[in-house]
Structures are given as C-alpha cells and as structure tokens.
C-alpha cells in the first residue's frame, strides 16, 4: 500500500472533482518521498492530461507542488501561460518565483505584445512575468 495506490485508475474513472482529488494527493506527496519512480511517471502523465483540460480547476490543481517539483520546464511554462489565459491568479502555481526563467518571460512578452497590438489590457499576472524593466534577461536562477 503506497501513498497513491490506485491513483491512475481513480483519475481515469473519476469525475472532475475526483480527478482534482488525485492531483491534490500528488501535490501532498510531492516532497515527502512517498512516491516511487513509476508512481511519479504515472503522476506526470495525469498532470499532462489535466493541463490539456479547459476546466480551470483541473489546470490549477495540476500546477501545484507535484508539477512544481517534477514537471519539465517546457510543460510547466505552458501550464503557467495557460493559467494566465484562464485568468486564474498565479498564486496557485507552486515555486513560480524559483522556476520562472528567461524563456517564460519571453513567452509573456510575446503575449503582452499581442494584447497591446489588439488594444487589449495586459493583466497584472501577465505583467508580473515580463522581463524586469532595465535589468537584462538574466533571471535563470
């Protein structure tokens, strides 16, 4: 019996609320060492599945601690940008400050350019991802 026993089946057979509960289980165990390698791989598959959803509750649960620790940079950045599109506050994203990098700022700057060209406002969360004014793009920390 492990922390995430039957997790994949619970997700696949569950309704949206049950799927969110599985993602929250993954988030709870992101740092406690309870997840075996194969469970972590399965968890990443579920997170990627949830990140393709259009329901903001699923996307935001998928961008919690488990993704913050384990999800690759490319998918993680797209998850952040998807939340911007969904107007979900980025406070929901785990480790945003540690993981934001020059590529995420580049994506944000391109989106801000589109919004400005369209005469639409640039939301605060999007603005917060832009490269720092004056400072060169060096936040690869």
């Amino acid at each position, binding site marked *: 019996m492990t922390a995430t026993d039957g997790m994949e089946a619970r997700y696949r057979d569950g309704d949206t609320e049950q799927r969110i509960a599985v993602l929250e289980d993954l988030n709870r165990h992101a740092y406690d060492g309870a997840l075996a390698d194969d469970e972590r791989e399965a968890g990443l598959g579920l997170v*990627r599945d949830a990140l*393709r959803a*259009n329901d903001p509750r699923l996307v935001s649960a998928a961008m919690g601690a488990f993704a913050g620790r384990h999800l690759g940079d490319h998918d993680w950045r*797209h998850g952040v*940008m998807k939340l911007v599109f969904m107007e979900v506050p980025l406070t929901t994203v785990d480790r945003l400050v540690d993981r934001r990098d020059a590529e995420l700022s580049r*994506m944000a700057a*391109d989106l801000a350019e589109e919004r400005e*060209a*369209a005469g639409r406002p640039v939301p605060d969360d999007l603005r917060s991802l832009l490269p720092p004014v004056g400072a060169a793009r060096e936040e690869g920390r």
Partner: protein
Amino acid sequence: MRIFDPHIHMSSRTTDDYEAMYAAGVRALVEPSFWLGQPRTSVGSFVDYFDALTGWERFRASQFGIRHHCAVALNPKEANDARCREVLAELPRFLRRESVVAIGETGYDSMTAEEDEVLEAHLALGVEHRLPVIVHTPHRDKKYGTRRTLEVIAESGIEPGLVVLDHLNEVTIEMVKESGAWMGFSIYPDTKMDPHRMVALLQRYGTERVLVNSAADWGRSDPLLTAKTGAAMLDAGFDAADVDRVLWQNPVEFFAQSGRLDLTPLPGFALANAPETFSGNSVRRGGADATVPAVPEAAR
C-alpha cells in the same frame, strides 16, 4: 450578402443558430474536426465523430438551406495522447468522402514533439490526397508557434496555397502573408479578433488570401460574426464586391482546390445575394441584412 463560413463547429450549436445564419446570408460552411472540450480516450470515438460530421450534421445543415462540408484530423491537444494517435491510420478512408474538403484542424497546442509529428503527418496527407489543410495556430506562444508552423510547412513540401493558418492576429499576419499561405481570422465576441480589428487588418493588408470565420463552438462565440464583419467592412468604406470576395469567393477558391465543393442551392432554398444584386450606385451600406438575426421561416 452571401457568406461561406470556412471554420465553424456546428455540432456544438443549435438549430436556432442555423436559422439565424441562413437569414444572415450563410449558404455554405466547413466544419473542421476539433477537441470536444473533454478528452477522447479511444480511436472509436473519433471515427464516430467523423461519421457524425459527414452524416447527421451535414443533413441537419441541409434542412436549413446550408451546404455543410467538413475537415477531418486528429486535433493538436489529443495528438499528445497515445490512445488517440492511432486515428491517423483511419484518416485516409475519410479523406475519400465527397463531403470532406480538407484536413484539419491540425497544428500546435503546447508545441510538443508529439504535436510536431502529427502536424507533419497531416501535411503529408495533404500532399498525398491533394487536399487543403487547416492549421490552427496556438493561443499560448502564438508568435513563436506560428513561425515554427511555417517552417514545418516549408519542409513538408506542400504548396503554401493549399494551407490556411488560422486564428491569426496583428502580430502573426505578416509572416503568413509572406509565406504564400492563406490567412485565417477567427472573429470572437471578446478575445482572438473582433470585426473592427479585422477591418483595420483588411485596410492595411488587403483582401487577397484572407479567410474570415466565426470559429463558433461550445465556448462563448457568435456564428453571425462573419456577417457582422461584412457589415463593419461596408461601414468602413469597402464595397459589396470586397465583402463578397472575403466572405464568399476566397473560401470558395480555397476549398474548391479539393474538387469537391457543392454550392448549388439546396432544394427549396434560394441563393443568397451575390454582389450584382446590389452593385453600382445602389450598394446597401450598413449591412442591414447582416446585423438582424431574424428568424423568418422555420426551415424544417
């Protein structure tokens, strides 16, 4: 005003929409295959969906005087699910159907390696079957994604004139125009593009190779935004022939490359007004027939 909506997801819409579209001048449309909002988990649900598009939905449209054609593809999001990938092998038998006039929508969502492979596979099918391809450009990272899409199109060897890149905006139009591909614009109530921004783009870049669609689906959208864009064009000083070019002749030219478009009026229904009927000095400005979604007669 006669209208051909080159991208609309009618299976997500009601019969009221069909009636209002007919009243506004819509006589033909293309429904690309897309994401249903909920992930599919097997090839069977794609096959049944394609059957519905080429069967029931086509019939439903015909009852309202609208010629329905479709495009089939594995959409970019589900390209990432191995359980759905197998549908690629099923596409060729659908591409032989007379009601299928294109491949799509394909393209990028998150720009993964899987999406690369599936986009390439669809472009190869376009070359092989000599069919137009509808390519969706991603919402996130649109500029980079559009540039990368153009590179993949160039490498595929498909003739650019056989491809439309859709959901373009002020930032992506120029690179697509230069490539020789068609430029698609989805007019939405509040996000991707609105009628006035569309008119500004037409003033700046011209009407050649431009397709305007409503991309109406299960989200907040409006199937009459094609007509409203035509009205906005007239208000801005374009003439009826320009509107006809953008809303009718361009999509006809693009999809006629399939050799399968059927644009004869359906029995019991009339042709929409071609521009001759209000040409010369009697051009009707303001597009009165476009903005009033009246539902005069039930077409059942």
